[in-house]
């Protein structure tokens, strides 16, 4: 999943890196096919070249050797709202059929079953990045038809499309999962199964999604991770299994 996510990034792109697996995927991309990737973290590091896997998005290794370190007001106003971010990479506890993301509460906001951390910078990354890529493991719990709370806007929410809301970025174009890849429909923004991992059936994916998932007529086959990608992940980038635990 991390390998497939890393392949979404093109060399030289400007990517806004979120916490967790996106962090690992971006650092893998930089170590493989996209050495000129520009990593921007909401903490203020621009063009970071971390020499160790950042434990958090505020890790000191993001500062040492970066192109620029600035305040968070600049990051949100000049870089993000200013339209300079090409790709936003996000995770989430719940993702729905339009790519709306919930990282706030499971259950009712006023009396939640589980209180999650909240938006951080995700709401504005989802609004302003020219495109966003979501990464999450498949389960009906994580992929309900409608999320309990819309923290970060997808392609349609609260009765209107992104365009009708007047949001600048194109929204979530893909959801990278541990079994296949969902892509947003050009017509209505709904997520559709577009690619399968080796050995995975359509049913393996549709049974783990909480709505009737549309399946494209021809499904792409995702190439398995190369030996080099696996070696980098397991031996160089995350030997302590900080992000890879359970995967």
């Amino acid at each position, binding site marked *: 999943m991390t390998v497939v996510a890393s392949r979404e990034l093109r060399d030289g792109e400007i990517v806004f890196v979120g916490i967790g697996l996106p962090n690992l995927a971006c650092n893998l991309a930089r170590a493989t096919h996209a050495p000129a990737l520009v990593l921007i973290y909401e903490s203020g590091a621009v063009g970071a070249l971390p020499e160790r896997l950042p434990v958090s998005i505020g890790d000191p290794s*993001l500062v040492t050797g970066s192109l620029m370190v600035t305040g968070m*007001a600049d990051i949100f106003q000049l870089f993000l709202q200013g339209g300079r971010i090409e790709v936003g990479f996000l995770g989430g506890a719940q993702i729905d059929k339009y790519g709306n993301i919930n990282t706030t509460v499971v259950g009712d906001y006023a009396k939640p079953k589980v209180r999650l*951390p909240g938006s951080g910078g995700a709401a504005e990354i989802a609004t302003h990045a020219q495109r966003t890529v979501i990464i999450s493991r498949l389960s009906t719990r994580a992929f309900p038809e409608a999320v309990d709370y819309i923290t970060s*806007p997808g392609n349609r929410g609260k009765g209107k499309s*992104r365009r009708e809301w007047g949001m600048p970025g194109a929204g979530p174009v893909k959801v990278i999962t541990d079994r296949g890849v969902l892509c947003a429909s050009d017509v209505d923004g709904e997520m559709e199964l577009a690619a399968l991992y080796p050995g995975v059936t359509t049913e393996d994916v549709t049974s783990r999604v909480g709505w009737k998932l549309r399946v494209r007529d021809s499904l792409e086959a995702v190439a398995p991770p190369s030996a080099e990608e696996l070696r980098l992940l397991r031996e160089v980038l995350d030997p302590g299994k900080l992000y890879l635990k359970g995967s």
Partner: protein
Amino acid sequence: MTGAAPVASGMPKASKVVSMRDAIARFVHDGDTVVIEGFTHLICFAAGHEIIRQKRRDLVLCRLTPDLIIDQLLAAGCARKLVFSWAGNPGVGSLHAFRRAVEAGNPPLEIEEYSHFGMVARFSAGAAHLPFWPLRDYKGTDLPDSNPRIAQVTCPYTGEQLAAVPALNPDVTIVHAQRADAEGNTQIWGLLGVQKEAAFASKHVIVVVEELVDTSVVRADPNRTLIPGMIVDAVVVEPWGAHPSYAQGHYDRDNDFYVAWENISRDEGSLQAYLETYVMSVEDRAGYLALHPGLTDRLAARARMCEGVNYGY
């Protein structure tokens, strides 16, 4: 301007250096709106611990990322309200005292929630003495529904609907920094967070530093000054005062402690025992450090010096 040295403005002013105990006693009162800022970097745990020791109550705590220090302040019963944008244990998981308060009302806690951009914008408005700050955000989300203070404004030039968030003007902001002089001219490098805006928005500012330096050190590199002494009320010298957070060039983040917090905070009894041992039973930061033998060797930063620049003309 002549090329002469700025003699008049270089006259030494009264030192603002005080102990942490005196700074908190003087500038943090029951019911105050209190900011301890720092995005992962430079979070002043020493100040948070002193607030707990002095048993402040009914505080309104404002911080983008509440982090472990807010979990500790909540567990100690210091706060009635939290204003925030991301409440987790960065890189690890949950803040369990925060979750107990929000999920089970133990203890009751009022929350007011934004995104990071929303919190940054609130400090920016407060610092600029504006009533609100506009941002292109929150469309198609549930944030304005769960926080009625997120409003809408119409641009007077284009008619565009924008979100607006109200100015935040805290009673006191506490900023940890690598160094300052005795007047509070404060220099920070590494991640800068929202400390400048929070300090300018605040009625009072306490600066806590790893190192007290002569004003000539500040004047030699003025671009590195984030907070000018004119807005600072107190300077506290407290090396390692940000542990388990970090100070670039001084010490690394204590990730082992952030991971350990998961188990400490999951159980209310063990969290209270932690506070009793590491906060209430010690007099000050020196006492806290004495309980962590080997800490300074384990986390001390390796040097990565930068070359200076030429400020001549």
